[in-house]
């Protein structure tokens, strides 16, 4: 979307697969015969298999909102969508752009458009929840993001419902529940995705609430068929309950895990933490595990701590502030979530340490002795190491 890379450079090239000895067929699979173990494509060719791996992905959800079929109402999942959006903006000289849903795709695309377009855009973001990035951040952390983005010129309408998209053949506005009308040359809808399971249903595979049901080895209810990525239902690492978990990280790992399973390895997928990141202008946000709000919804009584930190030692030029929030389960004292809002890119990756600690079942007490790699140019002072300081704060809160 930013125009920083060509389409071809960001896709897995057929040449890469073919030079490894993999055959690539561009066609739609219309039928799988699980008894005779064959796959039929639209043009009629039939492929036999010993093992089948389904990676059919997910499609953007288009909510049943009036006006969704007007020209200029779009969603984004892949490169062709991005190219369509860019062409539409250029051809129509679009200035007023409304995003419905303040998830990470909306926020990144909105900031990229404002940052990279020569003309000044009027960008509005409408979110039903009370904050942007509601699946990643609690309100206290999201407020920092919202204030920064508003300073950059984005208009963010939280706690608002997009009631209707209006226009005559093509979109010209969005009517909100409050009665306000936003002018729109383009409406971008980002309210989630749904697993593509038509083929799996046709085969008769067991389905879960969020997609194809698989075991810890990516095996479906048919022993010769495995599946992975956005089309399968994931299991949350903390609760062990089904979850959509449609992010690229687990998709890649599940594909690789399925390959290992087929090669004879017995490695189990541990479940997902929905770890993800989002970059908007010079601000980077990352999150993993549960937010404080989600933890409460899942029945956890949590103890949380938020710490302000620095990307470098305070005396080093170029130091940028960042902030981390950790969420602990009060009962077990285990870490169950983390959020980072940073004005530098590098600190946002400290979320991977948080993920590792959650996977390892680390407690408040154990994290009070965590020692980071430290250097004036790459980290805060050791005395201000935010994960350790946050654990100490949580420890104190438990004593109160």
């Amino acid at each position, binding site marked *: 979307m930013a125009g920083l890379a060509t389409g071809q450079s960001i896709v897995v090239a057929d040449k890469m697969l073919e030079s490894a000895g993999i055959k690539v067929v*561009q066609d739609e699979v219309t039928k799988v015969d699980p008894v005779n173990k064959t796959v039929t494509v639209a043009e009629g060719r039939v492929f036999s298999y010993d093992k089948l791996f389904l990676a059919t992905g997910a499609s953007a959800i288009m909510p049943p909102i009036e006006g969704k079929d007007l020209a200029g109402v779009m969603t984004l999942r892949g490169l062709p969508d991005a190219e369509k959006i860019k062409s539409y903006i250029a051809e129509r000289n679009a200035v007023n752009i409304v995003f419905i849903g303040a998830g990470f795709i909306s926020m990144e695309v909105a900031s990229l458009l404002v940052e990279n377009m020569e003309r000044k855009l009027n960008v509005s973001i409408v979110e039903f929840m009370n904050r942007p990035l509601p699946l990643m951040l609690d309100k206290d952390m999201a407020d920092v993001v919202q204030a920064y983005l508003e300073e950059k010129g984005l208009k963010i309408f939280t706690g608002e419902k997009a009631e209707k998209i209006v226009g005559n053949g093509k979109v010209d506005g969005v009517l909100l529940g409050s009665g306000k009308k936003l002018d729109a040359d383009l409406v971008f809808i980002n309210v989630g995705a749904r697993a593509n399971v038509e083929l799996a249903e046709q085969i008769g595979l067991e389905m879960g609430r969020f997609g194809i049901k698989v075991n810890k080895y990516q095996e479906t209810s048919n022993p010769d068929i495995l599946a992975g990525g956005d089309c399968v239902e994931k299991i949350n690492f903390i609760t062990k309950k089904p979850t959509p978990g449609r992010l690229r990280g687990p998709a890649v790992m599940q*594909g690789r895990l399925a390959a290992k399973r087929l090669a004879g390895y017995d490695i189990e997928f541990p479940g997902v933490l929905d770890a993800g990141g989002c970059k908007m202008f010079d601000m980077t946000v990352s999150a993993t595990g549960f937010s404080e709000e989600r933890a409460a919804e899942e029945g956890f009584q949590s103890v949380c701590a938020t710490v302000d930190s620095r990307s470098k030692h305070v005396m080093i030029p170029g130091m940028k502030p960042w902030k981390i929030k950790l969420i602990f389960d009060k009962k077990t004292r285990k870490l169950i979530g983390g959020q980072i809002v940073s004005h530098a890119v590098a600190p946002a990756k400290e979320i991977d340490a948080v993920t590792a600690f959650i996977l390892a079942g680390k407690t408040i007490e154990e994290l009070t002795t965590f020692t980071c790699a430290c250097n004036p140019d790459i980290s805060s002072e050791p005395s201000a190491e935010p994960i350790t300081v946050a654990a100490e704060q949580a420890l104190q809160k438990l004593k109160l």
Partner: protein
Amino acid sequence: MKNGEKLVIVGCSGSGGPAAMLAKKLMPEVDITVIRKEEFFIVR
């Protein structure tokens, strides 16, 4: 999987490409075919 057996991968989500590449690396003698309807493999 045994040498000479056939693995068919349907789709080009973030899972299909990595599954194909690692399967070929771990099982060079397995016959692997990736079938996708999209023009490109999807990436974010």
